[in-house]
């Protein structure tokens, strides 16, 4: 208790210093007065009495200092003093301070930004009541392939009736058309079983969650819970939201709740807008209530209290065995082995696409920050060299070494915290950039929260310590000279300390050169890879094609009515000024999603899966895929006419090598379909991946199918994209009000989105590469500049003895050259192993491309030579006589 009490008193004492200092003065005066009185009474003359009294009392200022130390918190005083000193030092070198702060801001900001993404997607528990009890039900295959396991609706119902876990909920993401009073939009819906919110442990901020009651009877409870974001975006956070209607597809639903702001579903990065009871699946566009063959549901469970994952897994497999006997219709695959894994962090589907590039970025950002540490440390070492005399004087005057170290650390910590604070400001912007460059597939909050802030601060502190300790380690030679007396250090520099300085800084600079070479090489490889990707001919027009997706399925029309709608839509669009051709298709090139059907190969007689794309009339001329032989589809290829198909060259080669594909017949799908005649052959187009050859493809006339799913209008336009998009939107709204248009983009955008990741990787590594190059050049410059300044004496003598400037430059630059040479060699070897890691990101260029290595090394070498030459040359321009007198 006593120490605590004392600490509290000290803190209050610290805050109210003025009054208590008066108290001490008064007490001391009183003490001395009484003592003087006493000495006077003893017969001493007044002056002598006063002198003796003071002697007896001891040093007044020492007492006052001790008293103050007791009264206050001396550590705070020293800290304030150190901070003041550090601020003064930093302000004395504004260029250094600004450069270092900006460099650290970029480094720390980039690290914090990437950390915040990784944290949000991968590290942070879901914002639910008991995330540690959440489990995801998978099977062995799903675990091996890192994708969610899917289950049928009857199986989920059967399993949910068991008491294996404290609760099992099912979910399925479903794209829906949503119409409120003001607008229609495409939204991310999630069909969930009634106990989903209870099992997951999610709450609402307004209204209630969905309940098992809502899920009791198919079609009986048209109620939904909407997400906080959807509430704000679509309803302006209307507080009277409960009971309002929202039309999903063609059914009107009542809003009964708004989810808690933090909860966006369990798939991080793909937030849910609207939760719909599973029993309303038909209204939401799914109809698998009795279908045990279709597996489309994910299952999540909640462990019972104290239940372990292993125990639950065992209980689960027992339960499935029993179910297989009791309800064989529901359990179609009794041998499927179910597994459980933790769902505390939810699932991050998006991680699969962004994970690899994020990991690379994190590594690069880390290396860059390290490089920045090197540079700043080496600049500080240069400065501490300059301060060697000052330090020696301080030591001679009795400064404690620990105090000098804490002064030095305070300065670098202040610097790194400045950089960190600026980095926190930069971070959300970088995060936003990273998120948006991933396309629409990733939706994350980019605000800085305390976790990211804490991360940035920890990184700053570590940076500050690392940077601050370097000069201390380097200068420990000077300080150990204290025991031998500080005097030598004041007059001349101790040889040992200088050497240690130089060696450490040279090592740092060599590392820097090596690391920046590696960054440059990776950047150059990625840039060339991007250029190669851009140069690939995809096989279709890359400009002037507008894409608009629409999903008339939820309107509830039959196939004939939908066909009529599409034909009317195509007619209208074709009449719009600025439109050259218009068509529509099921699959868009370079977008996710593909449709495959079995086809009988005429060679082997086997059924193989072939990509098919139902397309409208005039599709090929609209998208610019050249027709090699035969004809395009026309408006008359419908259900009443003979079935026809158009194939690409690759399919023709696979199916009828060396034969004329025209007129051949082809049977698609299950055996029931009539054979279709090949009426045309088109050039190969790359639908899935630019890096690979095109897949074999069979194009089917859209109006010969009965598909009612979403289709994409393809419109070849003349003029501005925005004008045409607006015109088409108007036409469609007047044709079918309430049908949302989504994914409005050009084929160019599609191409860009597909290349977003390589482009982002190339841009960011290039930025890092430039920064690294600059840092390395500064480092090399520093090496030579210091070498020159330390040899001013020698330079003067040599020049006086007739050395030419060229001779001096060579002599001074030698050290820098050795450092750069070692750095470059190390960098080449380092790059060989580093670029191997980037192999999967590269296209059209080998990870060990010799030309790239040579050019990057040459660039760095030239820059380094300049950085050596300039300070060495400056040194020779000194007046010899003055140089000799110097120091």
């Amino acid at each position: 208790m006593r120490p605590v009490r004392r600490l509290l008193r000290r803190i209050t004492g610290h805050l109210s210093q003025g009054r208590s200092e008066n108290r001490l003065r008064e007490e001391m005066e009183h003490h001395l007065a009484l003592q003087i009185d006493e000495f006077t009474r003893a017969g001493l003359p007044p002056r002598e009495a006063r002198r003796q009294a003071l002697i007896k009392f001891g040093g007044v200022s020492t007492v006052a200092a001790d008293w103050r130390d007791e009264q206050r918190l001396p550590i705070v005083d020293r800290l304030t003093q150190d901070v003041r000193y550090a601020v003064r030092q930093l302000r004395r070198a504004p260029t250094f301070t600004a450069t270092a702060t900006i460099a650290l801001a970029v480094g720390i900001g980039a690290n914090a930004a990437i950390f915040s993404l990784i944290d949000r997607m991968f590290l942070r528990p879901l914002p639910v009541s008991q995330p540690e009890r959440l489990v995801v039900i998978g099977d062995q295959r799903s675990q091996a392939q890192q994708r969610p396991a899917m289950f049928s609706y009857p199986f989920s119902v059967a399993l949910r009736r068991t008491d294996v876990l404290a609760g099992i909920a099912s979910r399925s993401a479903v794209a829906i058309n949503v119409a409120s009073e003001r607008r229609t939009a495409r939204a991310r819906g999630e069909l969930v079983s009634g106990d989903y919110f209870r099992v997951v442990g999610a709450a609402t901020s307004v209204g209630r969650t969905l309940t098992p009651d809502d899920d009791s009877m198919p079609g009986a409870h048209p109620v939904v819970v909407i997400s906080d974001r959807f509430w704000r975006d679509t309803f302006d956070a209307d507080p009277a939201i409960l009971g309002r209607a929202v039309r999903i597809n063609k059914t009107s639903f009542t809003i009964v709740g708004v989810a808690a702001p933090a909860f966006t579903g369990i798939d991080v990065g793909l937030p849910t807008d609207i939760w719909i009871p599973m029993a309303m699946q038909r209204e939401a566009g799914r109809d698998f209530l009795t279908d045990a063959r279709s597996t489309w549901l994910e299952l999540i469970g909640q462990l019972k209290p104290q239940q372990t994952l292993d125990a639950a897994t065992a209980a689960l497999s027992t339960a499935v065995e029993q179910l297989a006997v009791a309800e064989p219709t529901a359990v179609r695959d009794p041998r499927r082995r179910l597994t459980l894994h933790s769902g505390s962090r939810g699932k991050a589907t998006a991680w699969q696409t962004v994970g690899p590039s994020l990991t690379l970025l994190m590594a690069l950002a880390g290396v860059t920050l390290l490089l920045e540490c090197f540079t700043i440390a080496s600049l500080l070492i240069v400065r501490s060299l300059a301060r060697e005399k000052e330090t020696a004087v301080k030591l001679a005057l009795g400064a404690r070494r620990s105090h000098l170290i804490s002064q030095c650390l305070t300065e670098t910590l202040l610097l790194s915290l400045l950089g960190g604070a600026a980095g926190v400001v930069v971070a959300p912007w970088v995060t936003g950039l990273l998120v948006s460059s991933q396309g629409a597939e990733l939706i994350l909050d980019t605000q800085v929260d305390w976790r990211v802030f804490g991360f940035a601060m920890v990184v700053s502190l570590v940076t500050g310590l690392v940077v601050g300790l370097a000069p201390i380690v380097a200068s420990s030679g000077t300080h150990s000279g204290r025991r031998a007396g500080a005097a030598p250090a004041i007059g001349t520099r101790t040889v040992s300390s200088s050497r240690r300085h130089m060696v450490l800084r040279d090592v740092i600079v060599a590392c820097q050169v090596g690391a920046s070479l590696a960054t440059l090489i990776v950047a150059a490889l990625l840039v060339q890879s991007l250029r190669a990707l851009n140069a690939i001919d995809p096989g279709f027009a890359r400009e002037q094609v507008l894409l608009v997706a629409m999903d008339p399925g939820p309107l509830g029309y039959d196939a004939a009515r939908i066909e009529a709608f599409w034909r009317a839509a195509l007619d209208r669009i074709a009449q719009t000024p600025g439109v050259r051709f218009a068509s529509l298709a099921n699959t868009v090139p370079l977008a996710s999603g593909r449709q495959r059907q079995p086809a009988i190969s005429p060679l082997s007689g086997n059924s193989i899966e072939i990509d098919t794309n139902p397309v409208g009339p005039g599709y090929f001329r609209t998208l610019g895929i050249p027709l090699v032989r035969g004809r395009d589809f026309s408006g008359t290829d419908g259900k009443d006419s003979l079935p026809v198909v158009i194939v690409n060259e690759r399919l023709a080669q696979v199916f009828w090598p060396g034969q004329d594909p025209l007129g051949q017949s082809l049977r698609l799908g299950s055996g029931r379909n009539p054979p279709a005649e090949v009426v045309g052959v088109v050039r190969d187009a790359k639908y899935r991946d630019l890096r690979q050859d095109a897949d074999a493809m069979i194009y089917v006339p859209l109006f010969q199918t009965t598909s009612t799913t979403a289709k994409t209008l393809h419109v070849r336009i003349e003029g501005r994209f925005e004008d045409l998009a607006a015109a088409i939107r108007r036409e469609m709204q007047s044709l079918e009000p309430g049908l949302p248009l989504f994914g409005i983009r050009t084929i160019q955008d599609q191409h860009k989105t597909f290349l977003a990741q390589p482009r982002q990787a190339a841009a960011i590594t290039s930025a890092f590469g430039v920064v690294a190059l600059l840092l390395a050049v500064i480092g090399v410059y520093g090496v030579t500049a210091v070498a020159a300044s330390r040899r001013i004496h020698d330079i003067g003598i040599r020049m006086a003895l007739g050395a030419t400037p060229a001779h001096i430059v060579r002599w001074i630059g030698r050290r820098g050259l050795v450092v750069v040479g070692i750095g470059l060699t190390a960098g080449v070897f380092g790059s060989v192993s580093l670029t191997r890691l980037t192999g999967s990101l590269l296209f059209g260029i080998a990870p060990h491309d010799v030309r790239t290595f040579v050019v990057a090394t040459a660039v760095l070498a030239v820059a380094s030579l300049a950085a050596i030459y300039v300070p060495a040359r400056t040194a020779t321009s000194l007046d010899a006589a003055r140089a000799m007198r110097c120091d």
Partner: protein
Amino acid sequence: MKDKRDVQQGTLALMVLKTLDVLGPLHGYGLARRIEQISGNLLAVNQGTLYPLLLKLEQEGAIESEWGTSENNRRARFYRLTRGGRKQLQSETRDWEETAALVGRFVAVTPEDLQ
């Protein structure tokens, strides 16, 4: 050097507490005089060191102080032992006696005692 001062500081604190316990409230000069009389040379010089110590004891709650009037009609700060201080004095006295007894036994030890 430092260690010896620490010992003296500890002893001085005990002396302050004991003096206040025996003589009642005193001002700084009075305390210094009494301790000088009893301890001889310990506080003959550097009497000023008493004041930081008094502050420390006050912060620890062993003593308290207030302004009063001294014998020559001047304003002076008077220190008084608190209940906590009395307890502290008792325990420190006990500790001291134990330590002294222990050290005494060791000082008096002869080769025969250790065989």
